């Protein structure tokens, strides 16, 4: 069955949405993310929607629901990578995206989560790489 993959990276879950999602895929993703937050005890969820060339009210509502569900499970959800044309369109459409944290890209979302102490600061391993 078609599923959107959820990658676990430390305390983070990274979801990259690349395809035009039909409703069932959206509902499955919602369920999969909340299940993953529970089993992995993730503290942050990053939804990369740079591959989405449209966000309608259904998908918008899904983003809000995921943010609300993960929030009560002590995980912050960030929506990142929204295309400018999509941002303009959802504002004109009047889509309420309140309660959803947004960041320009994955890196900036991670920075914010670190600043909030939700995920650990960068480990030394990476810095010493190539020593």
């Amino acid at each position, binding site marked *: 069955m078609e599923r959107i993959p959820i990658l676990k990276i430390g305390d983070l879950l990274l979801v990259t949405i690349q395809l*035009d*999602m*039909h*409703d*069932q895929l959206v509902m499955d993703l919602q369920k999969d993310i909340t299940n993953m937050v529970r089993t992995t005890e993730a503290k942050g969820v990053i939804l990369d929607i740079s591959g989405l*060339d*449209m*966000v*309608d*009210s*259904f998908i918008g*509502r899904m983003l809000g629901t995921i943010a609300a569900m993960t929030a009560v499970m002590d995980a912050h959800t960030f929506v990142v990578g929204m*295309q400018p*044309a*999509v941002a*303009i*369109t*959802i504002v*004109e*459409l*009047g*889509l*309420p995206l309140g309660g959803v944290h947004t960041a320009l890209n994955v890196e900036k979302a991670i920075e914010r989560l670190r600043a909030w102490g939700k995920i650990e600061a960068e480990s030394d391993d990476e810095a010493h790489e190539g020593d």
Partner: protein
Amino acid sequence: MIDIVPVAVEEDLVRVRQKVRQWAATYALSTLKTVKMQTAASELARNILVYAGTGTVFFSAIDGPRREFQIIFEDQGPGIADIEQALQDGYTTGSGMGIGLPGTKRLVDHFEIVSAPGQGTRVIIAMRI
């Protein structure tokens, strides 16, 4: 040329959005206009599913004072008694958030709706090419 996409199941919404992308590419619509048309079409096709169950979407290009990419959404559902009310922000009878019609209207260059109780609904949207 005209394209016809029947709407009866959720997956059809994806087909409607794909068709918008194809047409927009054919007429070299800007990215913003393409996203707006796709979003408007997605909302209106969903309205068919939610309120009427089944319906049909027609894609065409029309020549007027200016050339327009036009999409018509037609269903034989219950129809709308008070169109003025349905076009107000925040109004809904379904499970939506009430941004469907008024929100969609804001996205396109041309918006027209014909409906009456028991007569079904026809919504026409168009974007200048």
